[in-house]
């Protein structure tokens, strides 16, 4: 194999986390709340993959479009029933955040019940599983490596295209900037919100569907991954999609690589502390630069040396 297995794992995780972080940031941009239920959408995706692989005996890749749809559907339902209604009632940021936590708890319970039902009905190991053997191989690479990387790159590029070139993307950005001004200009905010929730839920569920192809999955893994998602999004700056791409990739890579290197250098016991890596990122970002990479970049561009440097290499341009 050209690339060591650990780098494959790190890259797969990083690409999944990038997708999740983008969705988290999109939600934050449009709804102004951190959506704690975002990781749980990934948990739904995990079980879509599992159902396709073990119950229907198909390749889990056939489940990806369905995962996208189901995730989007769940997300839209969540928005319709809870978040949208609460926003109309005038709930503040904290109330909305608590409601997303409640949704996370509820959805995790549903996933657990579904997993238990699968185990009961089909006598499969639905509580803790790995779908590596359902994967295919492209040359020396496992399929998931190629698929996850390409899916992430494709979705980042298409998101970029959508946000800058299409009407709906521009409308989304306008809604994120100032909802009331956008509505004055004739943008249907409700539809834009629905669309962005559908998109984020779908992306999260798609990323989740890729998780069990390389990583051990349980009903709780969706709820577990939320710390990494938040760390990636926060590292990116919390309100910049491009920041989320970089942040998610960085946190995903470092979560696996730092743990591996730590295990090699310090001792095997470091592996137990893997969930601490994104927490360290969170705390460090908040202590050093609360606006994350996006804020740091903005400051760098605004500073004299930064703008001179950018001018000298001909890169002086706007952030968006």
């Amino acid at each position, binding site marked *: 194999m050209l690339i060591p297995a650990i780098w494959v794992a790190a890259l797969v995780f990083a690409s999944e986390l990038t997708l999740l972080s983008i969705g988290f940031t999109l939600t934050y941009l449009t709804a102004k*709340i*951190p959506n*704690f239920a975002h990781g749980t959408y990934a948990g739904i995706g995990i079980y879509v993959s599992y159902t396709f692989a073990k119950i229907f005996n198909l390749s889990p890749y056939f489940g990806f479009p369905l995962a996208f749809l189901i995730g989007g559907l769940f997300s839209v339902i969540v928005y319709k029933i*809870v978040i949208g*209604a*609460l926003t109309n*009632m*005038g*709930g*503040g*940021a*904290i*109330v909305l*955040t*608590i*409601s997303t*936590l*409640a*949704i*996370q*708890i*509820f*959805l*995790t*319970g*549903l996933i*657990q*019940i579904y997993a*238990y*039902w699968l185990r*009961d009905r089909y006598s499969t190991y639905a509580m803790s599983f790995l779908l590596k053997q359902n994967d295919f191989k492209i040359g020396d690479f496992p399929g998931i490596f190629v698929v996850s990387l390409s899916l992430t790159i494709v979705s980042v590029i298409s998101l970029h295209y959508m946000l800058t070139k299409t009407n709906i993307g521009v409308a989304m950005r306008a809604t994120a900037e100032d909802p*009331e001004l956008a509505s004055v200009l004739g943008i249907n905010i409700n539809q834009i919100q629905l669309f962005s929730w559908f998109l984020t839920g779908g992306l999260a569920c798609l990323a989740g569907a890729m998780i069990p192809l390389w990583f051990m999955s349980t009903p709780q893994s969706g709820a577990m991954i939320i*710390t990494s998602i*938040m760390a990636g999004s*926060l590292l990116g700056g919390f309100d910049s999609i491009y920041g989320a791409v970089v942040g998610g990739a960085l946190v995903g890579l470092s979560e696996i690589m730092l743990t591996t290197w730590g295990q090699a250098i310090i001792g095997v*016991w470091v592996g*137990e*502390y893997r*969930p*601490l890596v*994104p*927490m360290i990122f*969170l*705390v460090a970002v*908040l*202590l050093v630069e*609360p606006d994350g990479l996006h804020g740091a970049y903005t400051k760098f561009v605004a500073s004299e040396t930064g703008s001179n440097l950018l001018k000298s290499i001909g890169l002086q341009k706007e952030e968006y």
Partner: protein
Amino acid sequence: MLQDVALGLLTSGVAVSGTARLIVDIAMYFGLFVIVAMALNFQYGNAGIPNMGCAVQVIMGGFTVSGITVRLMFTMAEAAGTELLPWANDFDWVYNNPSNVSTMNEFIGPRMSFGVSMLLFSLAVSLILGAVIGWVIALPAIRLRATYLMIVLITMADAAQIFGRNIPAISGGTLGMFIPNIYEWYPGDRTVLSAVITLLIGIISFFLFRTMLNSPYGRLMRAIRENEVTVGSVGKNVVGIRRNILMFASGITALSGTLLAFYFSYVVEANYQRAFWTYWPWLMLILGGPGNNAGTFLGCALIVAMRRVIIVNKWFLQAVFFFPIAYFESILLGVLLIAVIMFRPNGLIPEKLLYIPGVNYTKMVNEEVKIDWRNAPKARGGSSGIGGIMSAFGGGKKEEES
């Protein structure tokens, strides 16, 4: 469940049974949760600090007992001439723990003052350590917007559990640790005694919080919740006050972890999950109505009674469900939280206007502002009622950072 194992192994001096046992259990949990929920009401209901890290503070209380008090007990018992198995290194600490604890129980038996002083010692230490951990976990985000604080505090609960799981010196890792029964000198049922002590501490902390809320400092807290920019502009250190409130309430919250450790005579990190020690108290607070103590008590009593009754009768309920009833808990918690937030956003007992004897607050409000803030027209970005309170804190980031 590990609790059941612990209770089975160390049921020495548990005599009350039947319905009385259930009542004692509910009283004990009511006492524990009322401490947490009141501290939460102090922080969130009155000062607007969304402390999502209750579990961290409770876990600190438990770790204080297992990591510090037990060592102190062993040292003192050895100094008094009792033979204990070695407990110096991690392996011995965990491996010899049950037999050491039973030796300790015999040691505590005739020495009432020792047991009481150990209880007081661990309460004092957990108060201090809770305040310290409150300071530490608030450090990254206390000056930023409220959602950042929530994110950091929620993840910290997991971090505390990871440390507890992997460092056996704290609480025996995944195996957990038995705690000497400090109520061994008491001839009757120790659960009743510990319930009484817990309720007493609950009452003391209630009066503490009540005094603080009725003092000028309490009005300052409410002012910060309503509009921190105004408070900052009249020369108050908003971040410092918020940090003080968080530290104080963290210390009180840690007490309930200590009391829980002594109640179970057992500490394991799995007992202090954030789902249990953060989300349920939040549900109690929101159900009862943030901002007033009566609501907190009502919410606490309702939720604790419901939970304990479900747990006790779970074999009857199990017949109804096709899945284990443990999963039903998270469904119930999520649905209740959402339902309360959506249908009773002000809780069962809404917050009243602040009554200060001698000051006609209503008149002041009517004359100076002309409108009640509750019925104020929906402002841009802001809102009325509870939402207005939240957005005052969670609103503009740029305002808060300046």
